[in-house]
C-alpha cells in the first residue's frame, strides 16, 4: 500500500536525519575501515611468514640433497628423492638432465625445465598420481648440481592459498557482521533516542495544550535525557510556581480590592441617599477620596510584590552606603518616634555598603520602622526602644529593626510575611497587611531575604542583603 510505504519511508527518513543515526553511521564506517585494515595486515603478514617458512624448509631440503649429490653418485640421490617423494605431504622433487629429460621426480612441472635459471620460481605443476589434473602452484628452488643435472625442490602453495582464502572469507564475514551489528546497533540506538525525544515532545505538546501539571518523563537511568528532562521539569516547576503566584495574586487582588471598592461604593451610595446638606456631601466625598487613596496604595504594593516574585532588579542596583539610608530614614522617623515615646537608636558598623536600590531599600526600612512604631510599644514604661542595626556577616549585610513590643509568635512569623495577613484580627490599627510582605518582596528583589526573629521581648526583622560589589560607596541616588 502506498500510504504505508510513504509512512515507512518517512519514518526511515526521520531516523536517518537524527544525530544519533549519523553518529552511529560515522562510527560504523570507522569500524569497517579498522576491520579491513586489521585483516589486511594479518593476511599480508601471514603470507610473508608462510613464505619465509617455505623458503627455509626448501633451502634446508635442497642443501641436504645437494650434500648427498656431492658425497655419492646420482643413483643414491635419485633413490633418496624417490623415497622422500612418496611420503605424504612431501616436497615436490624433480631431477632433470641437461637435455631436459626428467631423471626422477614426483611431479610434472608445466614450465620448460632447461629455461629455468638457478634460483626461486613460482610455477604450476601436477601430481601425476592424482586423479584430477588441476594445475597447482608451487614455490620452487632451482638448483644446478655439479653433474650438470638440475634439481627442482618445491612446496605446494595450496596451503598458502587456502589460508589466504580463509582470511578473505573472514574479511567478508566480519565486514558483513560489522555492518549488520553496527547497522542494527545504530538503528536500535536511534530508535531509543527517538523514543525518548518523542516522549519528551509528546509531554511538552500536552503541556502546551494546557495540561500544566504534566511533567517530562524521567527514566531514572540518570542519562543525559534524564538530566535534560530533570532540568526542564525544574523549569516547569518554577513556571508553575510563578503561575500559581499570579493566580493567587489575582485572587488576592480581586478579594482585597473588592472589599475597599465595596466600601467606597457603599459610602458614595449612602452619601447620595442620606446627605441633606452640602457639608454632609462634602464629608462623604472626602471619605471616598481617602478610600480610593488606600486602594491605590494596596494596588501599588501588590504590583511591587508581584514584580519581586517574578523578577529582579539587578540592572538598577548600585553600591550605596547603608549608613546614609539608615540614618536618613532614622532621621525621618525620629520626631514621630520620640512623640510616640519610642526612641529610635542607630547602631551601624562603620563603612557598610550594600548593593541596592536606595529608593526601595529606604521604603523597606521605612516600612519596618513604621511597623515597629505601630506594634512595638512595650508595656514596661520607658523600655519601648526601636533599634536599627547594621552589620556584615559572611559577606552579606544584615540590616535589622527591632522593637520591644509583643513580638510575633514563632508559628505566625512565616505567615505574616504573606500578602494581606494581619495578626491583628480586629484590624483596629491602620494598614492593609501588606507592609511585611512588601519588605520581604523588596529583600527578594535585591537577591536577599527577610526573616523575623524573637527580640525577647519584641520583634526583630532582619533584612539580609548582598554586600556592595566594589569599594565605591556610590552616592548615586536611585
Amino acid at each position: 500500500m502506498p500510504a504505508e510505504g510513504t509512512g515507512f519511508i518517512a519514518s526511515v527518513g526521520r531516523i536517518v536525519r537524527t544525530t544519533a543515526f549519523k553518529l552511529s553511521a560515522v562510527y560504523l564506517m570507522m569500524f569497517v575501515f579498522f576491520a579491513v585494515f586489521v585483516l589486511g595486515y594479518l593476511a599480508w603478514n601471514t603470507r610473508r611468514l608462510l613464505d619465509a617458512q617455505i623458503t627455509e624448509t626448501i633451502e634446508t631440503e635442497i642443501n641436504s640433497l645437494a650434500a648427498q649429490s656431492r658425497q655419492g653418485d646420482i643413483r643414491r640421490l635419485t633413490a633418496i628423492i624417490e623415497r622422500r617423494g612418496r611420503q605424504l605431504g612431501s616436497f615436490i622433487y624433480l631431477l632433470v638432465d641437461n637435455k631436459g629429460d626428467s631423471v626422477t621426480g614426483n611431479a610434472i612441472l608445466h614450465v620448460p625445465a632447461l629455461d629455468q635459471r638457478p634460483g626461486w620460481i613460482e610455477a604450476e605443476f601436477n601430481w601425476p598420481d592424482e586423479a584430477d589434473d588441476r594445475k597447482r602452484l608451487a614455490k620452487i628452488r632451482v638448483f644446478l648440481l655439479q653433474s650438470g643435472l638440475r634439481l627442482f625442490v618445491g612446496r605446494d602453495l595450496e596451503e598458502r592459498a587456502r589460508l589466504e582464502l580463509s582470511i578473505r572469507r573472514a574479511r567478508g564475514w566480519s565486514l558483513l557482521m560489522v555492518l549488520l551489528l553496527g547497522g542494527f546497533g545504530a538503528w536500535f540506538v536511534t530508535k531509543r533516542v527517538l523514543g525518548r525525544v518523542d516522549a519528551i515532545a509528546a509531554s511538552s505538546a500536552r503541556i502546551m495544550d494546557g495540561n500544566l501539571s504534566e511533567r517530562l518523563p524521567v527514566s531514572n537511568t540518570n542519562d543525559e535525557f534524564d538530566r535534560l528532562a530533570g532540568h526542564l521539569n525544574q523549569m516547569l516547576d518554577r513556571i508553575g510556581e510563578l503561575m500559581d503566584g499570579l493566580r493567587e495574586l489575582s485572587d488576592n487582588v480581586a478579594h482585597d480590592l473588592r472589599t475597599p471598592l465595596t466600601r467606597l461604593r457603599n459610602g458614595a451610595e449612602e452619601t447620595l441617599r442620606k446627605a441633606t446638606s452640602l457639608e454632609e456631601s462634602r464629608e462623604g466625598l472626602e471619605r471616598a477620596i481617602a478610600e480610593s487613596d488606600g486602594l491605590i496604595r494596596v494596588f501599588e504594593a501588590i504590583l511591587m510584590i508581584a514584580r519581586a516574585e517574578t523578577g529582579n532588579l539587578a540592572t538598577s542596583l548600585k553600591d550605596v552606603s547603608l549608613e546614609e539610608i539608615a540614618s536618613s530614614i532614622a532621621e525621618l522617623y525620629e520626631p514621630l518616634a520620640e512623640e510616640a515615646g519610642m526612641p529610635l537608636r542607630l547602631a551601624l558598623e562603620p563603612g557598610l555598603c550594600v548593593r541596592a536600590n536606595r529608593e526601595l531599600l529606604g521604603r523597606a526600612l521605612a516600612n519596618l520602622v513604621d511597623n515597629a512604631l505601630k506594634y512595638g510599644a512595650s508595656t514596661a514604661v520607658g523600655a519601648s526602644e526601636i533599634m536599627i542595626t547594621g552589620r556584615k556577616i559572611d559577606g552579606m549585610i544584615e540590616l535589622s529593626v527591632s522593637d520591644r513590643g509583643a513580638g510575633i509568635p514563632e508559628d505566625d512569623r512565616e505567615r505574616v510575611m504573606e500578602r494581606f495577613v494581619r495578626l491583628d484580627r480586629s484590624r483596629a490599627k491602620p494598614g492593609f497587611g501588606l507592609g511585611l510582605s512588601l519588605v520581604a518582596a523588596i529583600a527578594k528583589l535585591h537577591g536577599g531575604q527577610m526573616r523575623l526573629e524573637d527580640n525577647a521581648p519584641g520583634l526583630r526583622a532582619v533584612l539580609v542583603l548582598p554586600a556592595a560589589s566594589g569599594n565605591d560607596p556610590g552616592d548615586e541616588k536611585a
Partner: protein
Amino acid sequence: MKILVVEDDAEAGRYLTRALNESGHVADLAADGEIGLEMALSGTYDVLVVDRMLPKRDGLSLIMALRSEKRSTPVLILSALGQVDDRVLGLRAGGDDYLTKPYAFTECLARIEALARRQNPQSAQLTYRVGDLELDRLAHRVTRGDEEILLQPREFRLLEYLMRHAGQVVTRTMLLENVWDYHFDPQTNVIDVHISRLRGKIDKGQGASLLHTVRGAGYMIRDNAR
C-alpha cells in the same frame, strides 16, 4: 501661568485643564504626542504636563524632541507607570518632575507651581525672606526678627525648601522628595511631626505664625500680615 496639558484620555485631560483654569491658570489641551510637540514648540508655555503613553508620539520622545530644540520649559510627567525605574527613565529623558497616576489635583497643582517657580531666577537667591523670618543659605543662618534660630541640618533644608516656595502649597511627598530624596508615600504623619517641630522653632512665641497647614494639600510658608 500658561500650561499645556498633553493627555490622550479626553475625560482626564478635560478634568485637568478645567481644574487648572479654575485655579487661575490658562491651560491648553493636546490630545496626542505630535500635536503636543507642535503646540509646545510654537506656544509660550510656562509648564508642560505630559502623559507618558500617548498616541503618535510617546511622552518621553516628545520631551527629548523638545529638549533637542533647546527648549527648557519645565515638564511634569504624568504616568501610569509608577515603578522606580520608570521615574528614573522619565527624568533622564529630560522631564523635571514625575507624578504617578492616579494623583490628587492639589499634588499636581503644587508641583506645577513649584516647577514654574524653579524657572524663576529669583528662586536661586542667597537669602530668603518671609515676613521677619530670614534664611541665609551661605551662612546657614536663620533669624526671626533679631533672634537667631538654631536648626538641625535637615530642619534647615526643610525650611529652605518651604521658603523657596513661599506663598505656594508644598505637599508632603514634595517635601519627602526634596528634603530626604525618597519618592514613596509615607503612610503615617512622619512629615507632619517634622513640620510641627519646625513650627515650634520658628513660630513659637511670635505674634504672627508663618508656617501654615493647607488642609487636604500640604503646607505653605507665607506672611499673612502683608
